[in-house]
């Protein structure tokens, strides 16, 4: 490696948005992200500001308008689907289609990038699946059908599937959207553990600002004017969080590391 700094995710002058034949809608531009492995990143921003678009672009679900994305110093465009699947796994917000998959089968699907043409699970695969169940505390659910699970259980199982994929990067799009406080905290601390214990890079888009400020190593803030990234503490110190909502009703309290509602 020629450069002294090795980034797991790096973007240079990335522009994200949608383009059709008629027009191009730019959501954010000049994104220069530098992220090192083993960090938990909280992606914060208002509804509709483009968090999902950014994640979709970073994970090659949709193309960038311009600029480049590097995963492990490799250009995203040069990676095949299977290469990418071995580097990056997803937990999405979308509902799973109805099926009678069991929890075991669902988690085992995470091994697909590594299995042979028919999807045969070797002993190594089984061990990784086993570990995924243990880490997420979902072993007792293994033989249940996915449609029998509660929202909280399903979310854990989906994280287990991503773990079974055993990728250095896990990207989660609003993983706690349907969960109560108990399960939300559980999910966040599980993800935090994965980052520190297994050196996984975890990117979460979320509206759980207070929790994120306590647990995330880094923040990516999407504000209407600019994209800000950096260490959580540094951003708090520099009053950058004040820009997040840009509203008179919500202000940021530095001491509490929390957003508070200001009364008129």
């Amino acid at each position, binding site marked *: 490696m020629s450069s002294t700094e090795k980034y797991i995710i790096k973007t240079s002058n990335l522009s994200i948005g949608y383009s059709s034949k008629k027009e191009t809608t730019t959501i954010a531009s000049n994104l220069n992200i530098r992220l090192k492995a083993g960090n938990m990143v909280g992606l914060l921003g208002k509804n509709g500001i483009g968090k999902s678009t950014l994640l979709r672009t970073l*994970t090659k*679900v949709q193309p960038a308008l311009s600029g480049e994305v590097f995963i492990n110093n490799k250009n995203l465009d040069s990676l*095949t*689907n*299977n290469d*990418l*699947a*071995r580097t*990056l*796994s*997803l937990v*999405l917000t*979308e509902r*799973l*289609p*109805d*099926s*009678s*998959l*069991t929890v*075991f*089968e*669902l988690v085992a*699907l*995470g091994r*697909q*990038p590594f*299995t042979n*043409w*028919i*999807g045969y*699970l070797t002993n190594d695969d*089984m061990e990784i*699946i*086993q570990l995924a*169940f243990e880490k997420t505390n979902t072993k007792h659910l*293994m*033989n249940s*059908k996915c*449609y029998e699970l509660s929202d909280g259980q399903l979310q854990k199982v989906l994280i287990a599937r991503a773990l079974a*994929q055993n990728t250095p990067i896990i990207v989660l799009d609003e993983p706690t959207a349907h969960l109560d406080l108990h399960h939300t905290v559980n999910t966040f601390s599980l993800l935090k553990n994965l980052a520190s214990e297994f050196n996984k890079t975890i990117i979460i888009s979320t509206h759980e600002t207070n929790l994120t400020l306590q647990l995330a190593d880094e923040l990516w803030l999407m504000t209407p004017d600019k994209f800000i990234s950096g260490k959580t503490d540094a951003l708090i110190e520099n009053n950058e969080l004040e820009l997040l909502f840009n509203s008179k009703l919500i202000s940021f309290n530095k001491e509490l590391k929390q957003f508070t509602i200001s009364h008129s």
Partner: protein
Amino acid sequence: MITTAKSYKNTFVILIAVLLIIFFINISLGSVYIPLKGIIGSLFNGEVEKESWRAIVQNYRLPKAITAIIVGSGLSISGLLMQTLFRNPLAGPFVLGISSGASLGVAILILGASFLGANIASYAFTNFGLAFAASLGSFLVLSAVMIAAIKVRNTMSILIIGLMFGSLTSAVISILAYFSSASQLQQYMFWSFGSLGNLSWKEITALTITFLIGISFVIVIIKPLNSLLLGENYAKSMGVNVKRTRNFVLIATSLLTGVITAFSGPIAFIGLAVPHLTKLLFTTSNHKILLPAVAISGAIIMLICDSISQLPNSEYTLPINAITSLFGAPIIIWLLVRKRKIYY
């Protein structure tokens, strides 16, 4: 140690046993009574009391039973593929207009033959000509539905588009029928009733080869089909080439449905219902188990329907298409009302 997915070995053994039994029953039944000894003798080229029995079994009943097995399996597999691809329990070769596409191909060939000229017409009426026209028709309609599917993400809309293509093709067939002679019309009507008989060994070989080609396209996409159960985005994130998988489903279904419809007529109900029946028996979505299960169940149900359609010990044979729907639809309704939600 971690337990793998539930094993369905016993269910498979029973299913295969049932298939063999029904196969024998199917061959034993017919307008001419042949005792079991005669059947076995004819099948294995042993001693038989009357040489005519051997001829009946070897040249008529055996080909028909084999056709039933291929038709049942092929249509059921097509239905399963459609249901997984469109993630919709209503999908099937009929609903998506694929069978209508095959019918259109055949209708143009039979009813429009007068426009084509004598040379083509004489070739057209061979079973092979029909097979080609039907496959082409179903491939065209399925491609049209697929192109629409790329533009329209909503699966419900795709099904409606499929139904619309279905009514479009029936409209064209009506117009063709209106300008056709009575004998052409009769020929088309007989084809549309469906029939498993009348296939020579040569045609059965062609049917079998096409069936095997279709199946080989399915076998290589078992793994991506399983990940598609989580939706397209998850499948992509696990390295699945969704476009390739979709194309393989397209090729396999149009080959299977097209050729089967060509040789045996548009057979309703099987493609939609057998996957549902199988999923009640095997409560799994894993295609590694479902595909063989659906293939065997389809063959069994087709053989049963064929046995019924011969009206045992009578000279009449009812149209197979009527039997599949007549006995199949109430069973599905009963199962849905009695049992539970069907997951696809």
